[in-house]
């Protein structure tokens, strides 16, 4: 954990914050107080103008999302470009894309926790929030993709008037359980982490409404050590449960495709390949969100260059894993000797969707290579730009898998070419509006950084043995 400026470091030059009440170095009697103040002021002071501008844009996009969905429900899914043979495209692409984004949060929280990666504490809360919001965006698409939003309850095992049960041998049904469980557990994990921080907000509150609101969600947490003991054990258990869960979710999503017999979908490496891709895209999204957040919201004292650099390394590493999967798919497509497999991959390279394929290769494999350079890893705006590029690339990866495989059926007479409609684009763009709206509200009202966890890994938090009390 790099530090909130150390207690003695009063030499920090007062940066001109441009009237931004969220910026400027944090104050406090000791390092713990400084962390509290740095994080709490985001919810206590009026936000800077950047927040309002961002929120206005996000709301506009969200409105577009709402209108697109209303148009969809009123008219039917003919408003999308779906056709035979590409009977689903943007809806499922967006679903897989958002679920993938939703992986980094729990990965950072759970896996890095088990791996004793202390640096995670600076970013895990924001990443978890991002996870929840991404899963919310993802969950919308299965709900709307038939244009009949009153029917998705058929997916749940509820006794109904039809005397029918969901089909548990269908990968789409596994999705319901995997994504549902993942959303629930992520929410629990997120909420549980916030309980002590809500208590901090409650105890700092100056208005009655804040005291009551944060008091309810803090549930009377007062930091008792006996409670901390059980809390930590429960947190460890949740982390241990969430780790295989993260792997399972995108594996199950990959089963949607890989259990079929369609060339380009049916390949055994899909589960780990999807998971690697999800972590890759998720980390890229964390970087995309946190670089501006630390810049404009005064969090650079907690989220330091070192955190950005470590995240870029994860992006590079998972990018290589994704590259390995691309390569292995190609090799086996040739090695299998299957005419259809071979054609599918030649078609990706040189067929009508070659533009999408090469966009994907550039974004996911070529662009992250810049992170071999330490200088580039430590340049936040380069990290931000590559984060955006990787997000584009990961969206295209899903498009390439789904679009190109469907558009070239076994019979040339059934071939087609998918052309998205404007509504396809506004739905995709609008989902970002929902995501950013939720994230900006999170920055404004919830503890953006896990204060208790950051404090716990400060050098000052360690008990010195061998000599007496503090004075």
């Amino acid at each position: 954990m790099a530090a909130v400026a150390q207690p003695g470091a009063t030499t920090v030059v007062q940066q001109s914050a441009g009237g931004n009440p969220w910026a400027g170095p944090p104050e406090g009697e000791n390092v713990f107080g400084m962390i509290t103040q740095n994080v709490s002021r985001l919810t206590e002071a009026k936000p800077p103008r950047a927040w309002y501008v961002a929120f206005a844009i996000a709301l506009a996009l969200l409105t577009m999302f709402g209108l697109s969905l209303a148009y969809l429900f009123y008219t039917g899914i003919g408003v999308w470009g779906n056709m035979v043979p590409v009977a689903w495209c943007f809806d499922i692409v967006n679903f897989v894309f958002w679920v993938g984004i939703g992986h980094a949060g729990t990965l950072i929280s759970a896996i890095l926790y088990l791996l004793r990666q202390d640096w995670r504490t600076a970013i895990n809360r924001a990443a978890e929030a991002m996870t929840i919001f991404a899963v919310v965006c993802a969950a919308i698409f299965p709900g709307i993709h038939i244009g009949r939003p009153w029917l998705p309850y058929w997916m749940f095992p509820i006794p109904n008037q039809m005397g029918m049960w969901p089909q548990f041998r269908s990968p789409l049904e596994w999705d319901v359980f995997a994504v549902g469980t993942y959303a629930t557990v992520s929410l629990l994990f997120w909420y549980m982490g916030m309980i002590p921080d809500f208590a901090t907000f409650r105890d700092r509150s100056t208005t009655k409404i804040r005291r009551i609101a944060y008091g309810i969600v803090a549930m009377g947490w007062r930091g008792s050590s006996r409670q901390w003991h059980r809390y930590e054990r429960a947190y460890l258990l949740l982390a241990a449960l969430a780790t295989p869960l993260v792997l399972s979710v995108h594996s199950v999503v990959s089963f949607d495709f890989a259990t079929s017999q369609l060339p380009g979908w049916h390949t055994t490496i899909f589960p780990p390949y999807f998971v690697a891709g999800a972590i890759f895209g998720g980390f890229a999204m964390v970087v995309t969100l946190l670089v501006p957040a630390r810049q404009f919201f005064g969090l650079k004292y907690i989220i330091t260059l070192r955190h950005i650099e470590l995240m870029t390394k994860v992006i590079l590493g998972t990018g290589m894993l994704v590259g390995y999967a691309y390569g292995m798919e190609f090799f086996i497509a040739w090695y299998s000797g299957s005419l259809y497999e071979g054609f599918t991959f030649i078609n990706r390279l040189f067929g009508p969707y070659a533009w999408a394929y090469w966009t994907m290769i550039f974004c996911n494999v070529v662009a992250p290579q810049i992170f071999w350079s330490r200088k580039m890893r430590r340049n936040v705006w380069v990290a931000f730009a590559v984060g955006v590029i990787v997000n584009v690339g990961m969206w295209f990866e899903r498009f390439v898998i789904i679009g190109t495989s469907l558009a070239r059926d076994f019979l040339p007479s059934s071939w087609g070419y998918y052309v998205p409609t404007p509504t396809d684009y506004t739905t995709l763009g609008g989902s970002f509006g929902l995501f950013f709206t939720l994230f900006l509200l999170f920055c404004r009202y919830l503890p953006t950084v896990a204060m208790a966890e950051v404090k716990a890994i400060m050098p000052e938090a360690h008990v010195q043995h061998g000599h007496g009390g503090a004075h």
Partner: protein
Amino acid sequence: MAKKDSDSEHDAPHGGHEDHGGDSTAAVTDDVRLPGAARVAQIAGGVGVVGVLATIGLGVSAGDDLRSFSFAYLTAYVYGLSIALGALVWVTLQHLFAARWSVVVRRVGELFAASTPVMALLALPILVPVLMGNHQLYEWVDHAAVEKDHILHHKHAYLNETFFAVRLVVYFVFWAWLGRYWLTKSVEQDRTKAKGLHAKLYGVSAPSMIALALTLSFAAIDLIMSLDARWFSTIFGVYYFSGAVVAWHSLFALVLFWLQGQGKLVKSVSVHHFHDIGKMMFAFTVFWAYIAFSQYMLIWYANVPEETVWYQERTNGPWQNVAWFLVVGHFVVPFLFLLSRHVKRNRAGLKLGAVWLLFVHWVDMFWLVKPSLGRHGELHGLPIGVMDVTAVVGVLGMLLAAAAWNARDKNLIPLEDERLAKSLAFTNS
């Protein structure tokens, strides 16, 4: 993924790690030399050579054109190779993740990682018959069959004797170089006491890991997957990798226990280190199950004939019991057993787990390789015999001999690594 502490070397103001024993300096009071290593190498090597020669002798005298020999030997060979490669992967990952907990045990890993040349030597009983046109093991060596079979003909550009040999040479040159590199650099530091070596090794580790991932995957494809030359699975390299990591950590724990029994590393390697190794055994047992299930599920569900046939062979007849044994023995039992923190921190418990995992990993290799013996339908009952035992004894003996031989003039701990103090003070909850 391996355990790592943050690579805090990059930013000056860092704090807060679990281990706060940073003020203590490296204070290894243990005996770190193994003077008996040469003797161990001689004994293990002797046993190994006898084992390999006995297998070859039995194989030649079986009079089936080396057929039963080839399959028995290949099973043992990919088993031993997986352990050596597991060690190589482990050491590379420790550098890649700048791990600090493992510094005190890293040298033992390096000794095994540097033992791949002996695996190259041991590859000859497979390679020589292939080059001589013996097609009992790999049907793609059979030119008459290749001419008649469209798929085999298609693959001939990749699956042919010359290219097979060239690839094996390339793999082994790289593995031998990498293992030797990790060991030499680390030993060199013992002597020169140079600081900052880990930063340099970190730089080497990233590209090495990529090359290692590729060579390991293709070695698995060449040696095992091409036994059934019509079958293919993109996840196969990952499958072999997952088993390799499990097997390596198991052997690793056993070797460390043995060393402590010899009075070495008694104080430096604590229950916390063993606990971490136990966690890795547990984690990769689960990972293996995940990969194995993914492969099975996708092939079972899609039910494409050219893919399903591989599982058809491996889940019917006598192999059905082996498959169920793997489900229970390679996943359910070790999962429940190693789930417990007390088991991982208990010497007898961890030892038992390690021995068991080494055994089931062999069963896994057996189940991958041997069913191909019956691809012409002449198989009745499990093809297991004396040769399987002698081959495993031979390969493992040679592997241990190579590692011991590497140890004869070296410290068992990289004494000059700056992070040693952190590793010694490492605690694990």
